[in-house]
């Protein structure tokens, strides 16, 4: 098992390298001169010359790449040309919001998706299964922004049950400490603030989490049905084990495997979906930051953010793979 972990980590390294090369080329293959592209509207001949000198743009490509690599390994992700704040510091303030959103969506998708999928799998072609199939179909056919606005319309505008925009009500005056709205609210010790922060999370989490929910529930259902038909489940019953034992130790222990793989992949979808969700609900997270960076032609920010997203995704998948190997002894030795 430890060898498996090491091998997986080592396997990720060439991907990171490839990524860094691709992103480096991204900046340098932009139409026109990179310095002009970066400066955009601010471009003047002196500034261009300055940027060229700063970034060493006159040097051969591989030297520039090595310099880039060096900067990366030192944690220097560049700075925005819009407001000159470093990517790293800006990221620290915006990332928590995205994490909150993603966590909320994941909890919704898994917390609802797996139990429902399990029930549907145990009673295939029953009413719950049919209902879930229809809901899943809509889940994957409705884009996040459509769902988001629909939720806002129904629960925010018409029913006034839940807030429509933002992470928290600014009138409550919760001081920003960790940039996690919920944690900051908890830190104030005021239940009203906590409830408010949670309420602001509900609609965005559902909007973001619906697609993963739909997929997770379908996969869980399929996995339960497949496993229930396996020979070893029949053996378990032939041994006289209680149905509960058969279900938990034999069916679910095996059904978990494909579900875990999907969850790992869905996290990627969540990261991408966060971009749209944050735009719809006006959350100040990394997702909306990417969009504004692209619109502002803030290329260095785009480059670094894509890298960060990719690294996060790779790390999450690594964790999922290790968890999978933990559950499935057959692949520990491959």
């Amino acid at each position, binding site marked *: 098992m430890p060898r498996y972990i090491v091998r997986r980590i080592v396997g990720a390294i*060439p*991907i990171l390298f*490839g*990524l860094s090369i*691709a992103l480096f080329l*991204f900046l340098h*293959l*932009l*139409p026109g001169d990179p310095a002009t592209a970066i400066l955009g509207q601010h471009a003047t001949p002196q500034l261009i010359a300055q940027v060229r000198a700063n970034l060493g743009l006159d040097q051969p490509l591989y030297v520039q790449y090595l310099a880039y690599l060096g900067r990366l390994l030192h944690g220097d992700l560049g700075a925005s040309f819009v407001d000159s704040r470093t990517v790293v510091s800006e990221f620290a303030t915006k990332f928590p919001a995205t994490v909150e959103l993603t966590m909320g969506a994941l909890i919704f998708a898994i917390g609802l998706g797996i139990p429902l999928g399990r029930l549907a799998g145990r009673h295939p072609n029953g009413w719950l299964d049919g209902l879930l199939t229809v809901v899943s*179909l*809509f889940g*994957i*056919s*409705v*884009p*996040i*922004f*459509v769902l988001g*606005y*629909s939720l*806002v*319309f129904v629960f925010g*505008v018409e029913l006034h049950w839940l807030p429509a925009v933002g992470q928290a009500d600014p009138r409550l005056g919760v001081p920003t400490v960790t940039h996690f709205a919920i944690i900051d609210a908890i830190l104030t010790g005021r239940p009203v603030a906590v409830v408010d922060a949670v309420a602001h999370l509900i609609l965005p989490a559902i909007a973001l989490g619906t697609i993963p929910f739909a997929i997770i529930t379908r996969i869980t259902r399929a996995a339960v049905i497949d496993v229930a038909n396996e020979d070893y489940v029949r053996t378990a019953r032939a041994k006289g084990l209680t149905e509960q034992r058969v279900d938990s130790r034999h069916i679910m222990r095996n059904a978990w495997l494909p579900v875990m793989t999907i969850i790992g992949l869905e996290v*990627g*979808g969540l*990261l*991408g*979906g966060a*971009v*749209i969700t944050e*735009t*719809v609900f006006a959350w100040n997270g990394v997702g909306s930051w*990417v*969009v504004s960076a*692209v*619109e502002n*032609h803030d*290329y260095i920010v*785009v480059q670094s953010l*894509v890298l960060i*997203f*990719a690294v996060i*995704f*790779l790390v999450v998948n690594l964790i999922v793979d290790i968890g999978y190997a933990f559950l499935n002894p057959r692949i520990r030795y491959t």
Partner: protein
Amino acid sequence: MTAPTIAVTRPVPQRASRGLWRDAGRRLLRNGPALIGMTCILVFVVGAVLAPFLTPYDPSIGQLADARQTPSLTHLMGTDLLGRDEFTRVLYGARLSLQLGVISVFFGLLFGILIGASAGGLGGKVDALLMRIVDVLLAVPGILLAIGIIAWLGRGNIQIMLAVGVSYTPIFARLLRGSLLALRETDYVIAARSIGASRLRILVRHMLPNAVTPLIVQATLALATAIIDVAGLGFLGLGPGDPRVAEWGEMLTDSARFLQYAPYLIFFPAAAIVISAIGFNLVGDGLREALDPRLRH
């Protein structure tokens, strides 16, 4: 000893196997949800193709005086904030979505098949290298990859199609490669190799036709996602960039502010996206079941 005479009765005529496609076609037509899906797609395609004939209005021109009218007999879906007929815009939006969606998936298939076939057919170092590239592409979550490519190439129709297409390439590449790797071990391929058929011939004549079916299913499902992704890019302000062109995602962004006052401006383009996506998803699922060789008798 005389040989026994066993009366031979005329055998019951058995239906000759008519091939995977006809079986699949028949099974698809009997699949209720798939039929619903095909209806949705039909509506979508007809609306897209016949748009100019279905409406007298121009999608990019409107009278400000007519702005923000609720749906009526003259304007079936109302008018937007610039007075343009919404129904017309939805139809022309279907045109654009169909175009962008289909070509995006086409690009994805093209690159995916090239990479997957090379990797799965040739194996070895080529396989390893190509799969590393695919892994790098996969490391960046879907929409982000498309956004990144748009940031790189700028806005515009071709750029969108390339961006979305590239974000689907890994799936198709992996799917094809997986099929080819499995097929390499099948008896008929080994038999072909044993009589000296060239690798290319084996690839094209024996392996690809059998590897094609999961690709078709995935491509159909990808059409659903493509429509959504293209609209998503439009929604984020990264769409084609021509304000005269009707694009569903952009229509949603423009109308978002009026959620409370003119919800129909959001409802109709949204419904159009959802119905098209449902259509392709249902048909894709139906195809998957229809083409499943295990279900053939």
